[in-house]
């Protein structure tokens, strides 16, 4: 009996030892057997911009000064031509980036004694790419989702057009395609798709341009350099530098969606 107990303990000990070194063996085996590079493969562009929490800072004063020289819609035009966003003159309009006055941009913050030049703005509004996005929570098909780098992305192949996200978004940043957009497009960018009837679209922080190392189209187009784009997790980034020096507002921050577009005042 004693002999058997001794054998059992020996075997158990050997097993424990074996299992504990198994992961090490597996890793070393992998290094030997795997080829150095597998093809075909998916790759990043060598210049691709990577971030952890993309954000935008809008310098309202600079934007206003540019507007005083004459109506400026450069950012809106750049965005909407690159992304084939149709111009539909009705309440069923399509917009990725647009202009608003102070009261509509920051409801609850505005009061009757707000400086006159501030009232009209314009404030450049776009999707806030919230850190806690309500649109993503309500989407039943995961057509809209939060990327690792903070962009709230649209997967238009998955969108079923239920418009829950539009109800969920407190910023009105989403537009629904009530019609085929083709007749409303005056010019087309043949390197970017259009949308079909029945899907929701919005700003994607130009994810397709970031993947090639380009800044968002609106940032590039702004003649006053009033739009600054960068990574908030990067302590050396320009957005962090600006935000630590100047006071900024965020739209409807009290709702807890943690918007990532900041307005310098």
């Amino acid at each position, binding site marked *: 009996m004693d002999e058997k107990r001794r054998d059992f303990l020996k075997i158990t000990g050997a097993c424990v030892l074996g299992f504990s070194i198994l992961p090490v063996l597996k890793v070393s085996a992998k290094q030997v057997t795997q080829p150095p590079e597998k*093809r*075909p*493969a*998916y*790759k*990043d*562009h060598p210049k691709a911009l990577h971030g952890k929490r993309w954000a935008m800072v809008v310098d309202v004063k600079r934007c206003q000064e540019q507007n005083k020289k004459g109506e400026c819609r450069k950012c809106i035009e750049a965005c909407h031509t690159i992304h084939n966003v149709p111009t539909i003159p009705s309440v069923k309009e399509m917009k990725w980036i647009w202009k608003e006055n102070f009261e509509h941009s920051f409801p609850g913050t505005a009061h009757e004694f707000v400086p006159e030049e501030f009232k009209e703005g314009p404030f450049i509004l776009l999707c806030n790419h919230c850190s806690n996005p309500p649109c993503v929570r309500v989407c039943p098909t995961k057509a809209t*989702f939060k*990327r*690792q*780098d903070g962009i709230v*992305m649209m*997967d*238009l*192949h998955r969108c079923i057009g239920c418009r829950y996200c539009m109800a969920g978004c407190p910023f009105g940043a989403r537009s629904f395609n009530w019609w085929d957009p*083709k007749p409303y497009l005056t010019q*087309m960018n*043949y*390197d*970017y*798709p*259009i*949308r*079909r009837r029945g899907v929701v679209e919005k700003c994607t922080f130009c*994810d*397709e341009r970031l*993947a*090639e190392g380009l800044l968002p189209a609106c940032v590039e187009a702004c003649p006053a350099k009033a739009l600054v784009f960068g990574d908030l997790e990067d302590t050396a980034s320009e957005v962090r530098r600006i935000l630590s020096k100047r006071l900024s507002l965020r739209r409807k921050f009290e709702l807890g969606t943690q918007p990532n577009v900041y307005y310098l005042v």
Partner: protein
Amino acid sequence: MKIYDAKPILIGLLIFVGFVSMPFWLHGGKVSPPPDPKLDTPAIQILEKKECVASKEYMRTSHMVILNDWRTQAVRNSKRFYVTAGGANYPASLQRACMKCHSNKAQFCDTCHNYIGLAPYCWDCHLPPKQETAQATK
């Protein structure tokens, strides 16, 4: 053997068979010519090595699989560039890769799709190159 109401039944049967066989006698027994996708676009002609992102046989049967993979990688996994088995680099995009060489949608994509009566909804959103779109809207 006697068939009740033989006359209307036989007439009805005749009409039915006529309808069902309509495709055959409408075309007079001719076989419609098999599709002949054209590969002679200017972009392809100047290529030194005429090679697609995968082998011809694979692309013929499974191009939609690659397109769907590209879509998933680009949109969901933010991987927008594809390296082929031959080592060539392409953007993982229908409009920015495929249609750059195969700029003749009507003579390339549509020939087979029309032959088998298929209307893929790719073209609801993805634009064929400029001259093609202009022709389609005319």
